[in-house]
C-alpha cells in the first residue's frame, strides 16, 4: 500500500514538470508584452526596457524557465507584473473563492446526480429514468455561461432574490454565513449544471452495469434483502463514481473561467482572464500551474481512495 502510494506520487512528478514546461512555453508563445500592462500606453522605450530588465524578461526563455522553476520549487511563484503583488497571495485568495463555489457546485452535482442517476439506474426505462435522462441531457448540452446570464436576469434582476455579482461583503476574509452563501448560490448553481448532467449519466450507467453483473444474481440467491444488496451496489459503484466526481471537481476548478467572468466572481478563472489579457506572465503561469497541480493532486487522491475502496486496483 505504502509503496503503491509512493509510486503513484512519483508518477505525478514528471507530469507536473511537463505541465510547468508546457505552461511556460504557452505563455511565451503568446504575442504581446506584459510591460504594456504596467507602463502607461505612451511610455518611452527606455522606460519599457528598464522594466523588462527589472522583471528579467530580457533573458532567454529557457533561463527564465529555470529561474522560475527554481523559485517555484521553493513556493515562490514570483510577483504579478501588473499588480506587483506576490502571485502566491493573489492565487490563494482567488483559489479559495473558486474552491468555495466549486464545492457547492460539486455538492449539488453529486447529490442530484447520485439521486437521479441511482434511481434511473435501478428503474431503467421507467418515467423517472426518462426524467433523469432529460436532465442529464440538458446538463451536458446547455451553454452554462449563457444559463448564468439567464439566471442572473431572472433571480437577481427581475426577482431580486439573489445578488448578481461578486463574492459578497468583505470577501477578503472568508465566511460561510448566509450573507456569503447568497452570493455563491447563483454561480454555484450555474456551475453545477454540467457536473449534474455528467454525474447523473455516469451513475446511471455504472449502477446499471453493476446490476447486470453476475454477482448480483449471486447476492439475490443468497437471500439477501434489497437493502443489503443496495449496500453492495453502492460499495461497488463507489470507486467508479468517485473517479467521475473527482474529474468533475477538477474540471470545475479549471473551467470556472466562463462562469466567473459572467458573475464577476473573484476566483481563479476571473484572475486567469485578467492575466491573459494583461499578459501578466507570472500570474498566468502561476494560475495554470496551480490549477493543474490541483487537478493532478485530486486525481492522485482519487486514485489512492479508489485503491483503498477497490482491492483489485492495486494489483494491476
Amino acid at each position, binding site marked *: 500500500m505504502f*509503496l503503491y502510494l509512493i509510486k503513484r506520487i512519483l508518477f505525478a512528478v514528471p507530469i507536473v514538470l511537463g505541465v510547468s514546461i508546457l505552461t511556460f512555453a504557452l505563455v511565451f508563445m503568446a504575442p504581446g508584452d506584459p510591460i504594456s500592462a504596467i507602463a502607461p500606453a505612451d511610455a518611452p522605450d527606455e522606460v519599457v526596457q528598464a522594466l523588462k530588465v527589472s522583471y528579467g524578461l530580457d533573458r532567454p526563455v529557457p533561463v527564465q524557465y529555470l529561474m522560475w522553476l527554481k523559485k517555484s520549487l521553493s513556493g515562490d511563484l514570483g510577483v504579478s507584473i501588473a499588480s506587483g503583488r506576490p502571485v502566491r497571495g493573489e492565487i490563494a485568495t482567488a483559489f479559495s473563492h473558486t474552491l468555495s463555489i466549486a464545492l457547492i457546485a460539486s455538492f449539488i452535482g453529486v447529490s442530484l446526480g447520485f439521486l437521479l442517476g441511482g434511481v434511473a439506474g435501478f428503474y431503467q426505462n421507467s418515467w423517472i429514468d426518462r426524467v433523469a435522462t432529460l436532465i442529464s441531457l440538458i446538463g451536458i448540452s446547455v451553454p452554462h455561461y449563457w444559463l448564468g446570464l439567464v439566471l442572473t436576469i431572472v433571480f437577481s434582476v427581475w426577482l431580486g432574490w439573489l445578488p448578481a455579482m461578486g463574492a459578497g461583503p468583505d470577501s477578503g476574509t472568508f465566511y460561510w454565513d448566509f450573507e456569503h452563501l447568497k452570493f455563491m448560490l447563483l454561480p454555484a448553481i450555474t456551475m453545477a449544471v454540467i457536473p449534474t448532467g455528467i454525474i447523473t449519466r455516469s451513475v446511471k450507467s455504472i449502477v446499471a452495469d453493476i446490476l447486470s453483473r453476475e454477482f448480483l444474481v449471486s447476492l439475490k440467491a443468497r437471500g439477501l434483502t434489497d437493502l443489503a444488496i443496495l449496500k453492495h451496489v453502492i460499495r461497488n459503484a463507489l470507486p467508479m463514481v468517485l473517479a467521475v466526481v473527482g474529474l468533475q471537481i477538477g474540471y470545475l476548478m479549471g473551467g470556472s473561467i466562463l462562469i466567473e467572468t459572467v458573475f464577476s466572481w473573484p476566483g481563479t478563472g476571473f484572475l486567469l482572464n485578467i492575466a491573459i489579457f494583461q499578459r501578466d506572465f507570472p500570474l498566468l503561469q502561476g494560475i495554470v500551474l496551480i490549477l493543474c497541480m490541483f487537478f493532478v493532486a485530486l486525481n492522485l487522491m482519487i486514485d489512492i481512495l479508489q485503491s483503498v475502496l477497490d482491492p483489485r486496483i492495486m494489483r494491476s
Partner: protein
Amino acid sequence: MSVSQTNILQDPDLGGANQPLLIIDQLYKRFPIKGLLFSKEKKYVHAVNGVSFELKKGETLGVVGESGCGKSTLAKLISGLLKNDSGDLIFDGQGVNEMRGISLKNLRKNLQMVFQDSYSSLNPRLTIEEAIAFGPTMHGMKKEDARELAIQLLGRVGLDANHFGNRYPSELSGGQRQRVNIARALAFNPKMLILDESVAALDKSVQAQILNLLIELKKESQLTFLFISHDLQVVNYISDRLIVMYLGQIVEYGPSQKIFEQPRHPYTKALFSSVPEYKKKNGVEKIILSGDPPNPIDLPSGCKFKERCPHAKDICAVEPKLNLVEPYQDYWVACHLAHAQKTLD
C-alpha cells in the same frame, strides 16, 4: 471450374522426408513482471523452462498439462508469435530464430495455428469468407481466387458456402466458428497445424464433429499436428505421441498409447486418475492431489512437483532429468522415482 492450390501455396519439402518436421531444443521463455518501483530484483514468470522434443512429419503430438503450465506459450514460440529467450527451434530444416521478413512469412504459411477461443480468433467485422480469404491474399493470391478458395475450404470443413459464406462470426455457433478457424488455417496449405485447446470450449457432440474433421484432414493431407489440450481423453484420442508438461517443463514424453497404459510420472498418474469417466475403467485408484499448481513466478528448486507429490523423497531436492524409460527407445520421464534408464540430454 477448379483451382489448384499447389500453384501458389505449396512449398517444397525442405527438410527431407525422414527429417523431423520440427526440432525443439532447450527452449526457454520467461516474461518479466512489472514489480514495484523499488524492488531491486526483477521477477519473471518462467513460462517455458527448457523444453526439447521432435515432431515427425505426419505425426500428431499431444501436449497436456494444467492451466498455466506453458502450453500456449510453447505454441506461440513455435509459431513465431513470441520470441524465445534461448534454445533452438528448427522447422523443416530451417532455424526459426534467425528468421525475419519473407522467410518468416513463409514459415508462418507452413505452420498454422487454430486457437482456443473460436470467438475471439475471428475478426467480428469480417465475414467468414473474407476471414478465410485474408491469408492467401497476403501471400499474393488474387482476391477472386482467394475467395474461390475460401468457398472450397468452407465446403471441406462441412459448411455450405452459400449459406455461411456471407455471415459474420457472431451469427455462427461455436462449432461452426471453429470449423471456420480450421478452414482459415488450411487456406495456406500448411505442413503443420498447431491446435491450442481448439476443442476445449465446445460441447461434447460438437467436439466429436471437430475431432472427426481433424482426423479426416490428417488422413487426407498428411498434416502434422501439435495438439494442445488439458482434456486427456481427447489428447489420447487424437495423438500418436504425448507430452505431459508441468510448470514449463516436460515431465513425461512418449508414445501416447504407452503413457496411457501405464503412466510413470506421479503427476501424470494423478492427472489420469482425476479424469472422471463414465464407463467404469480399469480400476485405477484415485490419486487426488492436494493444493493448487504452484505459480510459475517463484519456481521451487529441485523437482518442481515435489510439493504436491505423494511419493516425494529426499532425492527430489535434485532436479530430475528426462530419462529413457526401460525398455523403450522413445519414452522419457523426468522423475527420480520412476524406473528410468539413461539420461537424455
